[in-house]
């Protein structure tokens, strides 16, 4: 991170208490109790500075970017490109390697459709190496979010390539010993998540990238749960593409980003087409701008980009290393606490093993939606369901789980209040009395 103003002492509850003042939503009540927001894995809350950045934009500079001579348009363009630079440097990329999208889902679809278009012969000679067809394979893992699974299923179906996956073991860890067999000479692309949104596991990026590199496959990293919570340098990770969402990192909805290695973006055909991404258009054909413009068709998400730039500043000023460490602590407290409750099965790594501040669990004899409802009545917002990872849940013998996830604004007291509430769940539903089955 280029912004070096972050303090070096560790985050602690007193500083977190001050941080919380920046987040108006956290002062709300839920069902008549002070809100305990443990659902940042789904979407995070916005600090005042982010909302102000957006409002300031609309009051001072709102205009369509890249298109005008008048000063407003120039200022809007500057604001938009400045946001791109902020986001780029936040993840160690160059600005022209960052494409703004609506969310991570669209970022992953962008890659899939661009390769699909290359496979239909679009993009000419340069795009040829990006074409897939029968005999080629795409590899994912069994722990993927649907956003990093279905686009590849559809790409495979469109091109005739096959889709394979690296399985997980009973604890939800990737079976790396099988990965080497799954990724072979036919593999054109390996897509995997950096941090599982269900398990909190941090996957071994270097090992997986090495396997892909050996067979010349492209690598796509789903960084939805890592970019908001860990210091990320994409050059160190050395992946070809990386997707993340603004709304999970203190930014607004409606904005996400795709990192793409320059040499790929320069060679790949566009995905969405329309205005602002062309040089010359006739009725018959269009010539496209270089990246990132080539991949940003139409009027852009300007105010959302500006707000995301502001969010990234907030994170960088707080310090990603400090956030990581604080959340490691909260995550450990969550897992250790949950493991101590009778009838609770924590998914993913045991206590003591690395994870982010996120834990999913199953309560014996109580359905996840009932667990979530009970916790909500105590003012605690968690997520319940399959968390867009049905195959992983099926593999673990579940259809749903309950997930608590933290962020820089959560305190240890909140985690403790959550743990207390969890201990009450089974007796409320009469599950502890009858030994496990409602």
């Amino acid at each position, binding site marked *: 991170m280029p912004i070096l103003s972050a303090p070096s002492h560790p985050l602690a509850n007193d500083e977190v208490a001050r941080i919380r003042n920046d987040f108006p939503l956290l002062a709300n009540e839920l069902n008549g109790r002070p809100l305990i927001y443990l659902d940042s894995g789904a979407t995070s809350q916005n600090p005042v500075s982010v909302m102000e950045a957006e409002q300031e934009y609309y009051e001072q500079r709102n205009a369509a970017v890249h298109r005008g001579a008048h000063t407003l348009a120039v200022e809007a363009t500057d604001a938009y490109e400045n946001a791109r630079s902020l986001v780029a440097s936040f993840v160690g990329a160059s600005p022209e390697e960052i494409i703004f999208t609506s969310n991570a889902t669209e970022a992953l679809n962008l890659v899939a459709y661009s390769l699909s278009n290359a496979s239909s012969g679009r993009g000419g000679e340069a795009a040829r190496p990006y074409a897939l067809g029968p005999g080629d394979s795409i590899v994912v893992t069994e722990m993927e979010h649907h956003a990093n699974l279905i686009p590849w299923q559809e790409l495979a179906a469109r091109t005739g390539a096959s889709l394979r996956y690296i399985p997980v073991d009973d604890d939800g860890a990737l079976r790396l010993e099988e990965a080497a067999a799954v990724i072979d000479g036919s593999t054109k692309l390996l897509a995997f998540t950096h941090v599982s949104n269900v398990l909190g596991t941090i996957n071994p990026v270097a090992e997986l990238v090495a396997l892909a590199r050996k067979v010349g496959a492209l690598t796509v990293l789903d960084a939805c749960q890592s970019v908001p919570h860990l210091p990320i340098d994409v050059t160190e990770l050395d992946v070809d593409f990386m997707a993340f969402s603004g709304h999970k990192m203190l930014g607004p909805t409606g904005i996400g980003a795709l990192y793409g290695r320059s040499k790929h973006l320069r060679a790949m055909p566009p995905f969405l087409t329309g205005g602002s991404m062309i040089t010359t258009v006739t009725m018959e054909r269009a010539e496209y701008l270089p990246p990132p413009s080539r991949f940003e068709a139409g009027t852009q998400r300007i105010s959302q980009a500006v707000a995301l730039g502001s969010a990234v500043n907030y994170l960088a000023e707080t310090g990603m290393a400090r956030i990581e460490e604080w959340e490691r602590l909260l995550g450990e407290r969550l897992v250790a606490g949950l493991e101590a409750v009778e009838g609770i099965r924590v998914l993913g790594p045991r206590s003591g093993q690395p994870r982010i501040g996120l834990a999913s669990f199953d309560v014996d004899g109580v359905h996840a939606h009932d667990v979530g409802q009970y916790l909500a009545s105590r003012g605690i917002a968690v997520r319940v369901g*399959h968390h867009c990872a049905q195959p992983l849940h099926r593999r673990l013998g579940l259809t749903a789980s309950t997930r608590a996830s933290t962020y820089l604004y959560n305190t240890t007291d909140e985690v403790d209040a959550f743990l207390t509430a969890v201990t009450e769940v089974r007796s*409320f539903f009469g599950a502890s009395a009858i030994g496990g089955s409602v």
Partner: protein
Amino acid sequence: MSSELESLYQQIILDHAKRRVGQGSVDPSSGAGSELAAGCSTGESHQLNPICGDEVTLRVWLADSRIERVAWEGAGCAISMASASVLTELVSGSTRDDMMEQLDCFRELMRSRGTVVPDEEVLGDAAAFAGVSRFPARVKCAMLAWVALEEAVLAANS
């Protein structure tokens, strides 16, 4: 305990979630040769709640437009399991028309967002689900088995 929560999870619901009347095999021949007349028509429906992935499969046996028997399989939250259970008790032995009235009444209640007072005469124990209507995310849970019932009856008649 918050009263919101108790309005949702009435004791009747928590009890039915454990008792689960009617849960068992939905095989068309299950229960055959017993109380079921040979002239019964039967129909089955499978319903999925897309929000959570929970599923219910429900079968009805009808004779002379009367619901002779209901059986269902499935797994889900307390609300959905209790609803299937209460429904089984409630409609078994009803005429098709009575059951349709009960269904309409229950559906209206669920859609009311807390504005409708349940008609206990029509709904019996199912009136206990009134509190669910104030939790829009859980209405589908309560409706799951009812929708299955409606479609199973349709299937039995066609």
